[in-house]
């Protein structure tokens, strides 16, 4: 029997597709450290995110692809992850050069639980192994400091001869909020230009360090902050949060139309407050009806990321500054958050590939 060769193994692996990006793993550069010796084959598949939801599928596909290669006696596949940046746009200045993926958690209206979803998504991505930060851009009602239980103030850190703001760390995540700079119990009554300036500062002057994902809790609606983000930053994608009832969905449509205009890809839709499981009778109650978001996602071809139930412990622990994922990592709802985060990471990997092959605007002068 002929001995297996590196070429034959690579050739066989070309038949394995990344299930989300729909290109083979060899041309995507995901196969690393390939060694073939005496029929013993080992390599590392470098996933595009540690939160990859399809690791098992890729592993299985690799195994069956190599089963047909002559001379392979032993197979060892390990997994690593290198998050790819998916920031589109080509501005000469990137206010957040050390952030690979900037993700906006948005909704057309308030009260859908956006901040809670944003905080738990950030924690979930971290639990999957990605370096993640959380930015609270909700100027009008910053709630991240409460939800994450942040007690410290941002501190001054020396960076490249100057000073920047070091974000406080809460539950292992760097967290920044416009709330840190406001007097407690003071309402913000700024007009657009002031808001833009404050946000710019929050972006440019914060020392985030290297991040795979920066999750931004946006203020509700389609106003000044959204415009500032879309004009001044390279955004990877937006996640829309909605509640199931019809009116809330009308707001999803509005938010979508705004992001379409400024060409920010929508990487997912999450339905929050989907149902309530009664702790007395165990029955699932669909308080705001259910499934509206799935239908909207289908209609607008937005990836649907999942349904989050109404669970009183989410609110209870949120009020105490502990995300439910930290408090009860094994609970049903925590599993749902982890799953949603994995799907989101997958969609961002897809967005990264699209952004790379698609637009890369060059501005030249001749």
């Amino acid at each position, binding site marked *: 029997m002929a001995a297996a060769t590196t070429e034959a193994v690579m050739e066989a692996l070309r038949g394995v597709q990344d299930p989300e990006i729909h290109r083979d793993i060899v041309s995507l550069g995901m196969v690393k450290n390939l060694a073939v010796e005496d029929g013993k084959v080992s390599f590392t598949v470098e996933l595009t995110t540690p939160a990859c939801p399809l690791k098992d599928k890729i592993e299985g596909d690799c195994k069956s692809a190599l089963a047909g290669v002559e001379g392979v006696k032993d197979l060892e596949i390990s997994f690593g992850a290198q998050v790819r940046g998916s920031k589109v*746009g080509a501005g000469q200045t990137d206010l957040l050069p050390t952030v690979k993926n900037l993700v906006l958690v948005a909704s057309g209206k308030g009260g859908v639980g956006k901040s809670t979803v944003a905080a738990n998504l950030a924690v979930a991505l971290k639990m999957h192994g990605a370096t993640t930060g959380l930015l609270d851009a909700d100027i009008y009602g910053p709630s991240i400091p409460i939800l994450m239980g942040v007690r410290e103030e941002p501190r001054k850190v020396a960076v490249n001869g100057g000073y920047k703001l070091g974000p406080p760390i809460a539950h292992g995540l760097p967290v920044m909020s416009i709330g840190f700079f406001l007097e407690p119990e003071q309402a913000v009554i700024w007009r657009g230009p002031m808001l833009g300036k404050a946000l710019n500062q929050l972006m440019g002057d914060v020392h985030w360090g290297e991040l795979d994902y920066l999750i931004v809790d946006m203020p509700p609606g389609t106003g000044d902050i959204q415009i500032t*983000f879309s*004009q001044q930053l390279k955004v990877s994608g937006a996640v829309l949060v909605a509640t199931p009832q019809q009116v809330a969905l009308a707001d999803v449509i509005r938010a979508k139309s705004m992001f379409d205009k400024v*060409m920010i890809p929508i990487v997912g839709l999450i339905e929050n407050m989907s149902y309530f499981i009664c702790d007395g009778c165990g029955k699932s109650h669909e308080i705001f009806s259910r499934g509206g978001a799935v239908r909207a996602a289908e209609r607008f071809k937005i990836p649907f990321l999942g349904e989050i139930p109404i669970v009183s412990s989410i609110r209870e622990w949120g009020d105490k500054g502990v995300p439910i994922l930290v408090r009860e990592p094994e609970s049903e709802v925590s599993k749902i958050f982890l799953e949603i985060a994995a799907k989101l990471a997958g969609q961002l990997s897809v967005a990264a590939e699209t952004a790379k092959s698609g*637009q890369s605007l060059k501005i030249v002068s*001749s």
Partner: protein
Amino acid sequence: MEKPVPVEINHVRAEGKIRITWDDGHVGVYPQEYLRGYCPCALCQGHDAALGKKFISVPDAKLREIRTVGNYAVEFLWHDGHSTGIYNYEYLRYLCPCSQCKQVGNES
């Protein structure tokens, strides 16, 4: 995103023109006075006019710098300091003065 997006914007200084290459292969050459004339900002176009209908003549317009705006637009910095127009890709394409497109009326 099926709408065309620019892949290269070349400021040909010597000719005072801006050459835009799109991802669908289309190439358009925009004279700088023409681009300045159809500046989409409210100062130039007013608040109620439809975009691209009103031409503001700035005969000696000189382009200084081109900057991108987020994922969807560019802004031009003119020699006189004017810079408030955000030209989104759709509008830029709409303005394309080549004989194929020519959707916009002649500058007058």
